[in-house]
């Protein structure tokens, strides 16, 4: 019987970012938000996604469940912001800090 190896949160986040770049023509950047808490499968992966032209609503997570059938073994929070909001977040770490998060790595499109 085969053994299914669970992908790490880090690897899952990279795959998710690539998929989102393929499906969102106005997506400019995806940044991982830390902490990732690899040891806690219930703690969601948090992706900050910079979308040109999106409505500006600040830090507003939208939750998605784990979907092991699609290779997503963890819940995911998408935080969509405009380029201007992204710059504000880069200039002011407290914006993320108030949620308990810090800016993580850029996740590439390919």
């Amino acid at each position: 019987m085969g053994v299914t190896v669970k992908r790490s949160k880090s690897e899952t986040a990279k795959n998710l970012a690539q998929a989102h770049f393929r499906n969102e023509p106005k997506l400019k950047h995806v940044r991982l938000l830390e902490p990732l808490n690899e040891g806690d499968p219930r703690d969601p992966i948090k992706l900050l996604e910079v979308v040109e032209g999106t409505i500006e609503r600040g830090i507003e997570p939208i939750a998605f469940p784990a979907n092991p059938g699609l290779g997503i073994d963890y819940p995911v929070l998408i935080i969509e912001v405009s380029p201007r909001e992204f710059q504000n977040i880069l200039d002011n770490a407290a914006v993320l800090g108030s949620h308990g998060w810090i800016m993580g790595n850029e996740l590439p499109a390919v």
Partner: protein
Amino acid sequence: MPATDLDWARAYAKQALSDLDAREKLALAGAHKCHRLHFLQMAAEKVCKAHLTVINGHEKVRKTHAYVEKNLPIIARQFFTRMNDENRMSQWEVRQIEGIAGEIELLAPACDDGGTRRDNSEYPWEDGHRAVQTPCEYTFPNIDDESRTIVRLIRLIRTASESYAV
């Protein structure tokens, strides 16, 4: 003093926001797709009722669920255009909402497209092969509720609801 139309619109909008909060909690907890869709459908319906109550008055907002397909794209046009300077982006977002609004409406058990679509997020139904389908086991293949369109839809409902809730 009797309740005004704005009182009713505010109440619909607040309940839409609460429905979205419930969807967030259910999504993080790994609830079945039918439950996530159920709260999304209810939020969509209520923001449409808030919109129509402001425009037409509470008395004309009938007890029906068939509001979403027609009115959600109207709300999208209003809010994306008002809040977004880049018209091309607005058109793209509105098209995404138009594409999903009909399917969201059909999630309500009372909306079955003249008997051709009995699939819904709440009650079991008999499919075209006379088999009983159960919402918590059904895949709802016409709605990908993990897609970018859902992000767009939730952000629209929140934005519109907040504007009617004040």
